[in-house]
């Protein structure tokens, strides 16, 4: 009886261990940040391009438009 209780306890412990979160002490903590930048990179590039475009559009409609050094 006691041996059976012990076996069950052992099985429970072993089973629990299967579902313990895996510690990843050797994975660079920054890898998620790297991958994330690659994901948002395209979006950020479009945002910058749009802002440059929008500034030009505003420039066209601005009455006080002056020759800016980068408009050439």
């Amino acid at each position: 009886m006691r041996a059976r209780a012990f076996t069950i306890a052992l099985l429970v412990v072993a089973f629990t261990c299967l579902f313990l979160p895996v510690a990843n002490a050797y994975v660079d903590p920054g890898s998620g940040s790297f991958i994330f930048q690659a994901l948002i990179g395209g979006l950020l590039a479009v945002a910058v391009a749009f802002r440059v475009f929008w500034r030009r559009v505003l420039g066209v409609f601005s009455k006080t438009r002056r020759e800016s050094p980068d408009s050439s």
Partner: protein
Amino acid sequence: MQDEPQASPASFRDPRGFVFTRDGILYRQISHGHAPDYDRLISSGLYQELIDAGSLIAHQEVASELALSSDAYKVIRPERVPFVSYPYEWGFAQLRDAALLTLAVQSAAMTRDMTLRDATAFNVTFHHGRPVMLDTTSLGILEEGQPWVAYRQFCQHFVAPLALMTYRDVRLGQLGRVYLDGIPLDLTRDLLPSRTRTKAGLTMHVRMHAGSQERHEDDARQTERKAFSRRSFDGLIDSLRRTVESMSEPKGKSTWRRYYDETDHYSDAASAKKEELVERWIAETDPSIVWDLGANTGRFSRIATAKGIDTVAIDSDPFCIDQAYEDARRAGDEHLTPIVSDLTNPSPGLGWENRERSSLDERGPADLALALAVIHHLAIANNVPLPLIVDQLARSGRAVIVEFVPKTDPKVQRLLRDREDIFGDYSEAAFEESAEERFAISRREAVADSGRTLYLLEAR
């Protein structure tokens, strides 16, 4: 006598450019591995550009015989900063300015094909009233197609605490004292109120970023990294800048900010007398650095800074420190460094061996400390016995200007209103007796009709 040269306990993590002291002078050794990066910094003109903008600490190259180890490519001697403050001691506006400085340095670096390899807030301190980058060797050559290696650090050290201070509570700035590598993004996400979901910058740089970190934390496979275009890089820095700029000074209650507005505890004559005595005794002691303990918004600190003396204004109220900083910036005061620290629980030594970041006491004593209208708060509101208060004064300043506020004072009466008076030994006589254990009492003057007394204590 010459001291043994010593590597700084704060910079052992980066062998490319560590800091050491020799004969009390601070140097930085640049290793051969970092030589191409250092040469690019100088030859590209980036160094000069950053110095002209006041963004980077200036240095001089010195003889390489001064190196601490054989791997030295160069040895540089950075300009001395009289008091190095840490991010967890800054108010909101200081942290925000430090974030914008970091991004400005990154933008300038990118125009010369360089980048910041790390972006911890500890790379920045305040000097001449402005944030300045201390770590010359964090600037390296930009590898084309690589994303920003310091992105995670920037988000954890700047975006996270600024967001928590703005949208949750300004006191959360103190979390930086626990999380020296920046506030974890998943924690930040969980602490931020749900109304911040509408903020695009925070959604991207905190919420989605935290999600990506969690998804990939057990990602052991080598991920193929797509090239990160220069336009994406510009977009990233621009987006971070907008996110930081969108966060403004948090609102909240401050017990102390209006302290000097309440006129009930000082007559005009007493107020003028106190200022006159402080000014005269500062001139007499001729300090090169002053600590103002319990500085509030820095009213008395400004007497010292007006004389061109570097002054650290210390107060536990982040709103007061914010106000002191904003006032100093507006006035062009280059000598004030306001910091948030509670005298009853001052900044401790932190990090590896508790030595990476110095405690407040280790950064002292100053030549002169001011302890004006602060003793009664320590003694009565915080139950600190007078001899222990005097010990702390001795750790803070070689000389101290102390204001003693007697029990009959309305302010002390207010502190005693709701509690039993267990402070039988709180008296001028007892204070003088304690003070004489550690100092010589050089001056003693009544503050006009206020019943308060001002002392100048000097080391024997």
